[in-house]
């Protein structure tokens, strides 16, 4: 327990150096990367599929992390952006016959525009009011997708079936494995982009707004622009995640993108550690695997078991995976010191 307390008191000191707090050390990053690359070679296709979904939700959590952890704005509407991304990819692939890889940047751009535009009215709101406005977006989205006007494109309630891409160049690997590596490359690219974004001038502007809006504007930061920009970037990344998710699941339907998804993503962000980007993947693992574990413990009370686990996590490690990582780092440091003496 004392270690945890130490970590908590340590946390503000680390936060003062955002560059270190944002990422993992080079060594740790490489180990994680090596694990992510090697793991699929040893497991079944089903596990590879789950790992793909882990990356996809990880991206969506990362996007929310940029918005909330970076610029301090809440959103319960990420499922709407995810849905738009998923449908963009699915419609372009199935109706326009476009290559799956090309649909992703388009999904990203459309969602960026959508998020940026949504950010305009959202500027007037903050805190819980903003959360409510985005909540409205999330509840509206599934019904919008069912609307008769779009039905020719969206397939209405029935949804759209998406064809899973084969590995290119005749590579002798399964569709699942190819899609996993494809997703991994995109995830890494977006991760590096996000880390650099938060380290850049824009990122510092986000964080200045998060910490104190008035002070930020006094320093000459265009608060309105950066707040909407954060919304746009977050929505864009979520859109790419949605597109990848649609390809992996091979199906889009309005019922897949309800408010439950938005809340799951929010939960993933909190469990992973708000503002700590590597935590996104931990948060994603939490929202994918913990419900399965809960179901394994009790079928009838799976929701209650999930609630208890979530409560314990929030109670014991309120800063999420970030806190665990810090404790681990702390212990390693101690170990090294004691070895030297």
């Amino acid at each position, binding site marked *: 327990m004392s270690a945890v307390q130490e970590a908590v008191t340590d946390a503000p000191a680390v936060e003062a150096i955002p560059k270190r707090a944002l990422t993992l050390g080079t060594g740790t990053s490489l180990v994680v990367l090596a694990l992510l690359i090697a793991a699929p070679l040893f497991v*079944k*296709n*089903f*596990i590879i*599929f*789950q790992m793909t*979904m882990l990356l996809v939700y990880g991206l969506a959590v990362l996007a929310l992390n940029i918005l909330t952890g970076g610029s301090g704005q809440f959103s319960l509407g990420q499922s709407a952006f995810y849905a738009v991304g998923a449908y963009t990819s699915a419609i372009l692939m199935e109706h326009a016959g476009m290559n799956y890889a090309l649909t992703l940047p388009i999904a990203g751009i459309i969602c960026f525009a959508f998020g940026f535009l949504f950010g305009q009215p959202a500027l007037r709101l903050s805190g819980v009011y903003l959360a409510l406005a985005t909540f409205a977006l999330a509840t509206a989205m599934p*019904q919008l997708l*069912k609307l*008769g006007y779009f039905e020719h494109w969206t397939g*209405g*309630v*029935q*949804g759209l*079936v998406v*064809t*899973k891409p*084969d*590995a290119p160049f005749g590579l002798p690997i*399964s*569709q699942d494995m190819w899609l996993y590596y494809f997703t991994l490359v995109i995830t890494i690219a977006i991760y590096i982009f996000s880390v650099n974004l938060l380290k850049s001038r824009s990122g510092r502007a986000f964080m200045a707004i998060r910490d104190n809006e008035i002070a930020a504007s006094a320093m000459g930061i265009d608060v309105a622009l950066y707040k909407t920009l954060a919304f746009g970037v977050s929505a864009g990344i979520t859109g790419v995640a949605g597109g990848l*998710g649609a390809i992996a*699941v*091979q*199906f*889009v*339907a*309005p*019922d*897949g993108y*309800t408010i*439950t*998804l938005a809340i799951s993503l929010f939960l993933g962000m909190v469990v992973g550690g708000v503002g700590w980007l590597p935590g996104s993947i931990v948060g994603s693992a939490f929202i994918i695997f913990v*419900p399965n574990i809960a*179901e394994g413990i009790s*079928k*009838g009370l*799976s*929701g209650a078991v999930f609630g208890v686990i979530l409560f314990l996590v929030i109670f014991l490690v309120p800063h999420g995976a970030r806190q665990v990582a810090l404790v681990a780092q702390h212990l390693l440091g101690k170990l090294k010191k004691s070895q030297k003496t």
Partner: protein
Amino acid sequence: MHSRPNFLLAAFATTVIALTSTADSAFAQKKYDTGATDTEIKIGNIMPYSGPASAYGVIGKTEAAYFNKINAEGGINGRKINFITYDDGYSPPKAVEQARKLVESDEVLLVFNPLGTPSNSAIQKYLNGKKVPQLFVATGATKWNDPKDFPWTMGWQPSYQSEARIYAKYLMKEKPGAKIAVLFQNDDFGKDYLKGLKDGLGTKASMIVAEESYETSEPTIDNHIVKLKASGADVFLSITTPKFAAQAIKKLAEIEWKPLHIVSNVSASVGGVIKPAGFENAQGILSAAYAKDGADPQWDNDPGMKKFLAFLEKYDPDANKLDGSVVYGYGAAQTMVKVLQMCGDNLTRENVMKQAASLKGFAPDTLLPGVTINTSPTDFAPIDQLQMMRFKGEKWELFGDIISGELSN
């Protein structure tokens, strides 16, 4: 899609071919696919135990209890059923994950009675690609009866279209000059139904004088009813889910419109629709049914229902016999067991589909007398018969013959 076959599957297929070629010579050789052995048959299932449709989770629980009963009585040809059921929360992406888990990790022989049109749509392509039976899906959509494009998927309950055709047949016979007003829910359920009605009326489709659709998000449907009344129709067909069906019954009484009122089977529940709308408002309403109603005393001495009630008492004491989902789960599980019994010692996925497609005159305990399950290689719609019923007093009274919803032309 098939340009890069899965290696495992290829290897597996070779094994099966090797097995079949050797098996031909020996008499009554045992044949197995993944998920079946000398002692066990693994059956997968996906249900919304959580989420917006969790009320249907009862179906999965009833099925589990029924398979327990079968196991306690010695299993099927000496093999115990291992029923693995997962929660998808009515979310299609989760359904895909659970279906893959069942097929690739748990290695089930087949996926039985997964619930919900969106969830089944999501897993249909995957299961057909893997050649895993997706048997007796729990949805009323008509698209499951498509053996040509999806030879591994089969429905169970009467489709919405079959039911609508039965009303069309009834109206053409009993009220040939009827002017029909239709209120339908603007989703797959409503549209499927409307199509069935029009197909059933055929050249007489002009009998429909007014159509109104509503969204589930609308708080009331009063204005639609008023508009339909203004059309001068003398038949009102209510293709609605329970909440709106009850509203319609009430509103009709309020504005003193007394057409021949038909409600879809989905909303024929006495407890969920008729009682809240008021028994006095519901007299003479028509609907159709294919299963016995656990609440109806006329079945108290019915041998099938006696078996059903005895099963509930012994294996599923917490279940509510008034809940239509319990009756449903029992009937579906019984059909599954029948198919597995017919498979004998040849428990390959192909043979399971073959046997499922050769059910003739099978009558589970909970179906109405005369309603039977019939399938063939070109007919993947097991139940397509219903019987009309009229609401009288405080319960439904069946009348007329069992009518088939198959398109005659």
